[in-house]
């Protein structure tokens, strides 16, 4: 009788979860929130449903173990079922830890730049801080399409003698860099042109600008370029910058590889425009008061930093679930 009630409850809750998830997915999407389901599952009724499933699962598992222990015929298949049900505890526990303790962020590295990871920014859970330096970014292009990305990083530890290099490590798409429980996942990349702005007195304002990939349609063709709109540090100057990896005879050629790069720069303050135009590397745009030079360029990479101790618990839960199901099926 008890088993029947528990089983009925379990079925009702599972159906309710499936129905709610279906409604969540099918309900209209918001353009500003594409990951709509993630927001909706945090609603109280869904959390109550998952909690109810957790409780029912507890009774169900205890009941199953009790019946199995009392039974003279110890079927491995039955144990498989218990293991499978128990795996849900592990998965849900891991997921709860993830929701509560997961720390993420996006770090941008320009080549030769170092970022320090410490208790302050990525909750290292009392583990020692470390620093990561991007030595080089090596995109691999074939027929102008990116076929692979490789980042060459160095990891540094904070020692009594200062920051010491501990190891070199690569980072690729699908191959995160793991350090002190923190994963660095390759997310995006772009060009980082080095711009020098000089005033009349030849004072230099130097900036490396990290530009994201942008695209616009010209004459029906998509034009790829890297673009940003930014303020020049320590001034009231605004800079609109576009990086065209390939330009021939004054026309943009859709390309990722910087074989013949040009930049478009517009430097202004309020309504006053100082310089506005296209220049190649080592060329300058000159106004009566300011000179803007496209000095050089290198790459930047965007890395998703993830510190999630719940993740491995969830994966362990998956393994237990599959073992349980295999037992259920094979015996």
């Amino acid at each position: 009788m008890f088993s029947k009630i528990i089983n009925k409850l379990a079925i009702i809750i599972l159906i309710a979860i499936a129905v709610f998830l279906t409604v969540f997915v099918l309900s209209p999407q918001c353009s500003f929130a594409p990951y709509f389901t993630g927001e909706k599952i945090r609603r109280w009724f869904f959390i109550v449903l998952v909690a109810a499933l957790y409780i029912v699962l507890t009774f169900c598992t205890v009941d199953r173990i009790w019946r199995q222990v009392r039974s003279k015929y110890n079927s491995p298949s039955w144990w498989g079922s218990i293991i499978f049900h128990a795996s849900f505890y592990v998965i849900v526990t891991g997921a709860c830890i993830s929701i509560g303790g997961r720390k993420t962020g996006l770090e941008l590295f320009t080549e030769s730049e170092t970022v320090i990871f410490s208790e302050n920014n990525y909750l290292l859970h009392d583990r020692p801080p470390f620093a990561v330096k991007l030595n080089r970014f090596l995109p691999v292009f074939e027929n102008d399409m990116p076929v692979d990305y490789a980042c060459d990083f160095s990891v540094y530890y904070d020692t009594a003698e200062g920051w010491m290099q501990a190891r070199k490590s690569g980072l690729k798409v699908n191959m995160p860099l793991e350090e002190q429980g923190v994963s660095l996942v390759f997310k995006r990349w772009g060009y980082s042109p080095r711009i020098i702005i000089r005033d009349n007195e030849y004072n230099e304002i130097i900036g490396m600008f990290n530009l994201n990939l942008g695209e616009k349609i010209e004459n029906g063709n998509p034009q790829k370029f890297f673009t940003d709109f930014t303020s020049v540090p320590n001034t009231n100057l605004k800079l609109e910058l576009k990086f065209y990896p390939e330009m021939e005879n004054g026309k943009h050629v859709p390309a990722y590889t910087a074989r013949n790069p040009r930049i478009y720069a517009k430097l202004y303050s309020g309504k006053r425009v100082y310089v506005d135009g296209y220049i190649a590397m080592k060329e300058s745009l000159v106004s009566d008061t300011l000179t803007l030079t496209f000095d050089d360029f290198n790459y930047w990479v965007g890395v998703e930093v993830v510190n999630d101790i719940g993740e491995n618990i969830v994966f362990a839960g998956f393994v237990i679930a599959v073992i349980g199901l295999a037992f259920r099926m094979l015996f």
Partner: protein
Amino acid sequence: MTNLELILLKITIGLYLVSSLWLAGGFIFNREKLRKFFALPVLIALAAHTAVIIVRWSATGHGPVMKDYENALLGAWLTVALYLLLVFKWREMAVIGIVIAPLAMLLLGYAFMTEPVLERLSPGYKSFWLYVHVFTAWLAFGAYAIASGFAVAFFMRGHYDKKSVQTKIPELSELDLTAFRIVLFGFILHAIMIAAGSIWAAKLWGSYWSWDPIETWSLISWLCYGIIIHLRLAFAWKNQRFAVMIMLALVTVIIAWLGINWIPSSDHVFSKLE
């Protein structure tokens, strides 16, 4: 798509059509000769299908795991291969080919209508877990499709029994039990598929679960099959009820696959790293 691949694909679709007619003819006209060699035309079609995959693989340099065309190619192949394995073990189960052969033909027909351009693997796809994910996904979906075939055979047998017509379709209890075993097999692979997808997502996006619509659909269809299995084991929902449920649950699988096209904001579109 190369010319050779196109020719082979057309031949394969034609062979699946012949297989469908052969299998249907064997039953409708009750021809013993046709029934005796049920698996033969499907086996020939699978050989041609294998050739399409080999040609495609050599042209692209990677397994058929990218986009609708390659997914349909692999999905149909695994479903038919699973069916033939089943038939070699239990010859009398060949009857479900009436569902499997047209399904393979439709899948390849659908694939043919998409734009099967030759493409390299984009960086996001270069993962061992992708192959585990896609392979287990299609094995699971294939198993569910075969289980639906059993459901159809179940109703056919029931129909013949009512009219007291002699048939070569296996006993109802046998069909029911085999369908359950296949659903369970699919359910395990479905779980592995979700787990492999999560591991891949953690390495690619830094998040093992992001409630992406496709992920959620996959979970919904897994839950549906979980409910079916639970109902059968705990409340003895067998035979006709079980057959109806596995046919209905297949709809969630179809949505999980084709839904990718309807939901452009899904992470599964893979535009972000291209």
